[in-house]
């Protein structure tokens, strides 16, 4: 057991820290400038990361990454969080699309698609969820029908973040209605710049629109944009989903730490650290935040040591969302009524946290996963 960084990990961290310190990001454009300006700012940030070789350190060197280890990749996200800079704009392409293509893509697909993901020239989005297929993803109904050398797609997708900025969509569609639901799915790369794809922003409870709905009507996808073979979509999609929580957890964990430090400082200024009720609640949050850090690192350590994650991997996202919700609720108590004023950062955090236990796998689904796959409890019988 050695809960310190190795010399190579320390060197990696120090190099990144120095670069981040020397390349201070301009402040985010303020809210009035609109979401497009904010996105342009994040895109610009990715280009600077890209120029310095920091856009995707976890990618293999041959695809333009640094071949970073899992631990180094975790350090990367921790450091971005610590420096309070945003994630690269094309985060879905970098974390999900790229690695999925590296596993399933043809040599031509890798050559064509990977470089512009890295440079933020082409933004990617994820077309998985549908109005009637959320947690039950395999129930999706979007249809793709082969016509000559291309596929004609019709259906609807939802929760598509960044769709309005995206060139490519990782689309899972049903190509065979005769097969059982997990089979008969195919994974496509769909060009978003066509008339058959309409993007409509979904306004969320915070008032902003991180997510969209996609209305797809007779959209066309050339046959060479099938990833991993026709009928193999479920397996390919799982590769994407497995990549989803791996690195991101470390950025979220650091963000939580910073929010908690801010809250403790606020409580201190208001003399509430001496109040046993607040002290107890803050200490509990501190313990949970530390648990997340330890479980996340222990999960990585298990993968590096034994080649597979222990039970921790399934616990981190669940614990993070629960803790972030508790934290932002306590913040309302500590900060007082001002925290409920529209437009303040605490009111935003408080409202935004409500989505944490739904996005990227609901807490209920995560508990099912823990019960079935970690504890081996009998699978719930469902249709």
């Amino acid at each position: 057991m050695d809960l310190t960084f190795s010399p190579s990990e320390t060197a990696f961290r120090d190099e990144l820290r120095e670069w981040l310190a020397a390349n201070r990001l301009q402040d985010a454009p303020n809210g009035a400038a609109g979401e497009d300006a904010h996105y342009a700012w994040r895109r610009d940030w990715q280009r600077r990361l890209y120029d310095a070789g920091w856009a995707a350190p976890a990618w293999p060197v041959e695809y333009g990454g640094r071949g970073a280890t899992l631990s180094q990749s975790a350090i990367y996200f921790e450091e971005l969080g610590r420096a309070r800079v945003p994630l690269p704009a094309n985060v879905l392409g970098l974390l999900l699309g790229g690695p999925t293509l590296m596993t399933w893509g043809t040599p031509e697909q890798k050559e064509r698609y990977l470089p512009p993901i890295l440079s933020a020239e082409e933004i990617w989005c994820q077309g998985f969820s549908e109005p009637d297929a959320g947690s039950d993803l395999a129930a999706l109904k979007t249809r793709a029908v082969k016509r000559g050398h291309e596929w004609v797609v019709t259906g609807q997708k939802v929760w598509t973040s960044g769709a309005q900025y995206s060139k490519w969509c990782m689309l899972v569609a049903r190509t065979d209605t005769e097969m059982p639901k997990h089979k008969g799915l195919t994974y496509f790369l769909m060009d978003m710049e066509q008339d058959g794809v309409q993007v409509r922003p979904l306004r969320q409870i915070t008032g902003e629109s991180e997510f969209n709905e996609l209305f797809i009507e007779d959209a066309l996808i050339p046959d060479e944009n099938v990833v991993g073979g026709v009928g193999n979509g479920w397996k390919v999609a799982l590769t994407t989903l497995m990549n989803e929580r791996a690195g991101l957890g470390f950025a979220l964990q650091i963000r939580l730490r910073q929010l908690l430090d801010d809250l403790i400082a606020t409580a201190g200024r208001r003399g509430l650290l001496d109040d046993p009720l607040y002290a107890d609640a803050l200490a509990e949050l501190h313990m949970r935040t530390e648990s997340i850090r330890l479980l996340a690192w222990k999960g990585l350590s298990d993968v590096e040591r034994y080649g597979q994650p222990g039970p921790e991997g399934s616990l981190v996202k669940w614990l993070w969302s629960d803790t972030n919700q508790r934290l932002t609720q306590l913040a309302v108590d500590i900060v007082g009524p001002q925290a409920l004023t529209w437009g303040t950062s605490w009111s935003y955090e408080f409202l935004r946290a409500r989505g944490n236990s739904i996005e990227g796998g609901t807490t209920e689904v995560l508990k099912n996963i823990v019960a079935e796959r970690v504890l081996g409890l009998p699978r719930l019988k469902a249709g």
Partner: protein
Amino acid sequence: MDFGLSEDQREIQRTARELLAERARPERVREHAEAGRSDEALWRELRELGWPGIGVSERYGGQGLGQIELSILCEELGRSLAPVPFLPSALAATVIEQDGSDAQRERWLPGLASGETIGALGSSVDGVAELVIGGREASVFVLIHEDGAGRLLAAADADVSPVDTVDPTRSAARVSAGGAGEELGAGACSGLGRSLVSVSSELVGVCDRALQMTVEYVKDRKQFGVPVGSFQAVSHRCAQMLMDTERARSTAAYAAWAADSGSEQLAEAAAMAKATASDAGREVTASAIQAHGGIGFTWEADVHWLYKRAQIDAALLGGAKRHRARLAELLARQTALAPVEGAPAG
């Protein structure tokens, strides 16, 4: 970052688990608990294997291993609920070694390391410790006062009256020092942090066993024609038990590592480990009884021994609330020292 145990440590864990699975079977634990006596034969065997001295330095006859190794044994003994005075004696030895004077170490550690002497550790108010685990067998006591100062006294000099607790797998006593005994070293009690880790590790073992028994039970038990573990009301409870157990495990591991690596984080890590494990112990074992249904409330089902051990361990050396209060003090101190930056607008 490497959370893995070394080959030697895994060997200790494997050996301990196998030995206790054989020698501390549930029926044997129950038999000793019902008779209200510790398992002398098992204790003799553990002494021959050198367990009592695992963390005591070699110069005092111990094995000179670290908190990680000691924690491994605590966890396995917690898992089996073995009715032996290992934990209280190890706690006393830890504090004497960390905080005692040379004379105190020379007097007590060789006996504690061999297991010939049994020690016990208790929290005292006005010189009286109401509940000292292992107090009936102990011939030396360490009493930790509320302010952290330690007092060392031989059983012969103390007023010891046996107490029956809810957990008869280990003895207990009320110990009154009167004015007897001597101050323990400088009274700083740095051994207390390590002691908290040992108790936390025992709780991890208790939780792990409770979870394992529960998972086996709900897979097997059928109602409405299906295993009850297929109902989400039950399976989600089990998932929560795993969450609590794994949180306790990782914080205890971190604290054990902090103790062995001389980290300045020990005080914080130990408070965190004890608070996390105390809550986990109570929640997980309560859930175990609930998920077992009516059978879980019976004497025969053996789940209650875990529940009872968890209550004692959770309270031992301060419960979760006390350690969260301690953590809050540490946080307040750090906050007072740290520059304020980037706090979101209130």
